[in-house]
């Protein structure tokens, strides 16, 4: 896996909150490279900096120092190099949330198609792509259902379809199996591994779920904002 193209390249990234006595160093000199097809887990106790690192890679949080390169484009080097970070996220990154975070007023298909609508796809092409993805994730029979009517597993698969809709090569997942039982959690992880392999994408997952540790190519431990080992 490590032979693939580097999709995430984080060099010397630090992030602190506050100053003086209230200063908290959430990340300290973090270096991390993730390759195409690789599925890694960010592990560590609460407050170790996992979510902060995920937010930095997701261009949600500006690091205090360091350089971030995503899919070959350096997006942060002391400062953001792109003004439109939302467009960057739309084009390059897919997010999978702990709770699926589907928009409750849209159907499963529309929840997937909305990303494509934002990306400028035509309605017909967007619907076709959403239908294909839902079919691929074996949840197309629920395409017209609102999120409230989906089971936890169905909702999470729709959320994965949404994350993949615009063909991002970087997928960030925050506790994607936290709301699922162990069987469904295993199925979701198998699915993510399959997608990473087929679409040459990388997947970075924050998790505490020990039952799925064997599904990852690499476990990255964070402790007090530093990479402990890999």
């Amino acid at each position, binding site marked *: 896996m490590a032979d693939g193209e580097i999709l995430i390249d984080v060099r010397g990234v630090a992030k602190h909150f506050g100053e003086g006595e209230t200063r908290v160093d959430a990340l300290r000199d973090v270096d991390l490279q993730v390759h195409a097809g690789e599925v890694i887990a960010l592990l560590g106790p609460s407050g170790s900096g996992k*979510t902060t690192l*995920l*937010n930095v890679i*997701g261009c*949600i*949080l500006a690091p205090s120092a360091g350089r971030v390169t995503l899919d070959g484009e350096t997006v942060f080097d002391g400062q953001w190099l792109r003004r*439109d970070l*939302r*467009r*960057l*996220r*739309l*084009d390059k990154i897919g*997010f999978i*949330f*702990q*709770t699926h*975070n589907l*928009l*409750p*007023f*849209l159907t499963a298909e*529309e929840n997937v*198609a*909305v*990303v494509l*609508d*934002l*990306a400028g796809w035509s*309605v017909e092409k967007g619907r076709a792509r959403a239908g294909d993805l839902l079919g691929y994730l074996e949840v197309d029979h629920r395409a017209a259902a*609102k999120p409230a009517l989906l089971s936890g597993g169905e909702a999470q698969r729709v959320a994965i379809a*949404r994350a993949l809709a615009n063909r991002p090569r970087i997928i960030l997942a*925050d*506790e994607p199996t*936290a709301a699922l039982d162990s069987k469904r959690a295993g199925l979701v992880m198998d699915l993510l591994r399959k997608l990473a392999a087929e679409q040459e994408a990388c997947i970075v997952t924050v998790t505490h779920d020990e039952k799925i540790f064997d599904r990852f190519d690499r476990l990255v431990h964070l402790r007090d904002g530093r990479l402990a080992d890999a």
Partner: protein
Amino acid sequence: MNLALKDIRHGLFRFVLTCFGLGLLMTVVLSMIGIYNGLVADALAVVKAPAADVWVVESGTKGPFAEASNIPLTTRDAVSRMPGVAEAGAINFQNIEASHAGASLRLYVIGYEPGHPGGPQSIVEGRGIGTSHFELVADRKTGLLTGETIRLGRNRFTVVGLVEGAMNAGGDPAVYITLSDAMALQTELDPAAQRVQAARGAVSVKSASVAAVIARVAPGADVELLTATVRQWKHLAALTQAEQEEILVSSVVDLARRQIGLFLAILLSVSAVVIALIIYTMTMEKLKQIATLKLIGAPDRTIIGLIVQQALILGASGWGIGLVLILTVKDYFPRRVVLEPFNVMMLAGIIFAVCIAASGLGVRAAMKVDPATALGS
């Protein structure tokens, strides 16, 4: 994909209920605007009805509506002979309480001379007064029907025609009778009272006086010159039509007008706050969804569109429901509710401005939302 419409459709019942509530509030606002206009329109109706150019009244008064006015009936002949006067007529006014169909009916009785200015402008049903005595033309709001009779004073009058929109400043519907009947109604005593007066040796004086003489000027004649000429007679005063209207609005209905005006201002303020609160709350309830939209790459215009479009749909629906409701019920109000297109459009403009301003608060909150809020539980 229109997210605003999708969201509305998702919570349609709640949204419709909110719109209906707002619509009821708008109904109250529109009814107050209508009542305000109606008050002014009612006050002016009786002045405008004779289509006069000049009102000749008692010297030193602002009669016949703001103050009592009493001038000799012969004034009409004197005025009609003046240069520039096309026609003149004497009129008088009085409020009476009559009985009709077992209920008391408050009427504003206008006495006029048939064939002279001062009578009803247009008869909507039946005919005008055709005989010298005991016929009347009534406003439809009296509830009287053509052919019916009603006792006014000592005599019974037959309703021969109906008009609309004729009333005094207090909203009492008007009836038109001949001037001679009106003068008799004003001065004739009940037989028992007449006997008491006779026993006391009092002499019955039937004063041939009227409240005012109205004049219409000939084309090209100078109204100001005519009023100035009339004022040279020391026992008379003359007011132009515009002055008479101004007296009514600024004097007779001024307190009521200001009272309703102030209440309307408070009501509009309350409505604005309610609209703002609804829109702001609607936005605050969606912050997590907005954070998700931001995280998946939605630009600001998509989020602003979601908030502003919903606010405008809410405002427009509330306005529309309010308009439909008030147009449905306005004729059931005891007094006139007059809604001008300008008022309705002005309220639409105010609601639009409030919705945009309230959306601004929501948009401000939405713009501050950290996309990271969508991560985690």
